[in-house]
């Protein structure tokens, strides 16, 4: 009971208070709280964001597979930096290479000897031997790489 009678004058003082001063105090508190939260959460959000990975500068790789190891109508997955590529030997014996990352939702594609073209198991996407998306959900062709055979080495490079 004694508490209440002690509190009342404080209440009244507040309600008589200068409104512009009250508004200023409110603004001060609000901005400091905002700044405080910002100062806490900005580093946390930045912390959670992974640092950008160094793009592998390599635009050319020499494969561990030798040309004669890959027979017609088969394919191999290879590492292109940190990404996957697919090396196809077409039924007619030509070597071609593409990015193996499906343009739909980035599963790794595979070669289907029964169909004679590239296929993505995830949502049944099909690509022809030029990497073009021919059916299913993939919206774009697979990135094509250039294949060079130098003696018994296969060299795959980006760009033309």
């Amino acid at each position, binding site marked *: 009971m004694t508490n209440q009678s002690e509190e009342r004058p404080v209440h009244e003082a507040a309600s008589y208070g200068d409104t512009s001063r009250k508004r200023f105090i409110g603004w001060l508190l609000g901005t400091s709280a905002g700044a405080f939260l910002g100062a806490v959460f900005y580093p946390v959000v930045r912390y959670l964001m*992974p640092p950008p990975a160094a793009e592998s500068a390599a635009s050319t790789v020499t494969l561990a597979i030798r040309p004669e190891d890959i027979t017609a109508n088969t394919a191999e997955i290879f590492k292109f930096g940190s990404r996957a590529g697919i090396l196809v030997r077409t039924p007619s014996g030509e070597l071609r290479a593409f990015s193996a990352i499906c343009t739909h*939702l980035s599963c790794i594609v595979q070669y289907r000897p029964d169909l004679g073209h590239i296929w993505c198991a995830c949502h049944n996407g099909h690509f022809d031997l030029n990497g073009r998306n021919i059916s299913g959900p993939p919206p774009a062709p697979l990135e094509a790489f250039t294949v060079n055979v130098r003696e018994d080495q296969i060299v795959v490079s980006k760009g033309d």
Partner: protein
Amino acid sequence: MRRRGPLGRLLVWLDDRLGLADLGKLAVKKEVPVHKHTLWYYLGGMTLFLFLVQVATGILLVFYYRPSAEHAYESIQFLMAEVEFGWLIRSIHAWSANLMIFTAFLHLFSVLLLKAYRGPREITWLSGVMLLGVAMGFGFTGYLLPWSELSYFATRVGTEMAGAVPLVGSFVGRMLKGGDEVSGATLTRFYAFHIWILPAACFLLVAVHLFLVQKHGMSVPPDVERSGGAKGHMPFFPSFLLRDLVGWLSVLAILAALAAYFPTELGEKADPFAPAPAGIKPEWYFMFMFQTLKYLPAHILGIEGEVVGIIGFTVAGVLLLLVPFLDRRVSGREDSRLFTWIGIGVILYILLLTYLGYTADPTI
């Protein structure tokens, strides 16, 4: 009510400090309406029970699990093959997760069709839908942890979908993956989500949800209300709770049987440089979305098909969250047939697409 004896005195001592008698009064006052739909009231408690099973088995799994791309798969192999009852704990964790999501879905749809979301229970509904979201987050992050081939590609697809959301997508995608690709960094991150972030969110939401259920009591469906209200009431304590208990013990028995007869498999270890296997599929509760993506053409009105699908699912999720605010008729105690039909439509769509997901030939 002063009791005698040392135990009585201890109770009195505790009561003076904790106010136990008030809690007791609260428990005695709580009642559950009895009518033809009373059965559906048990689903929420069932989901909560399964969640507690998840907490218990999850804590046990942490003793052996090692969250890195090099060790995760091997640590689970060890757990399944060498650790005594390791297979049991892991299988119960996996089965209970599935059952929990299943009962959560049933709970959601029963609340939707019985219109239990109408005022003043809007926030109960909001917290419930968010809890379902958290549960699916648990499923999504937990699926990757064994680092098996299937889970690896399901996660690639899942995070890529999150990354395809307009505006925030690339930020969310990188934040989830911990880099540009699904890698060991993703595994560690998912582990952090799975055992710290999501449980914390879950406990908070469950607290809000339960507090509100306690505050507002059980909702009586409008059709029961119109035909003269509930037949009667049963006390929550002990009548309802004992019935709950029967359900929980039965579920525990079912879990044990499922775990013993169908122990969870591990599959092949993930290899980021191997083609996605032909049978790739997500957990069953994501299947309807996964299957929808298969049927969407590459481009719809010039926009990539999967982006359309993802926007569609996002909008559907937001609409689901807002149901109590959209369904204006039910708040006026009127019949809201439209929302019943939409609810049934959604259930049928999910059932059909899930069925197709498991039966359609994935290779043609």
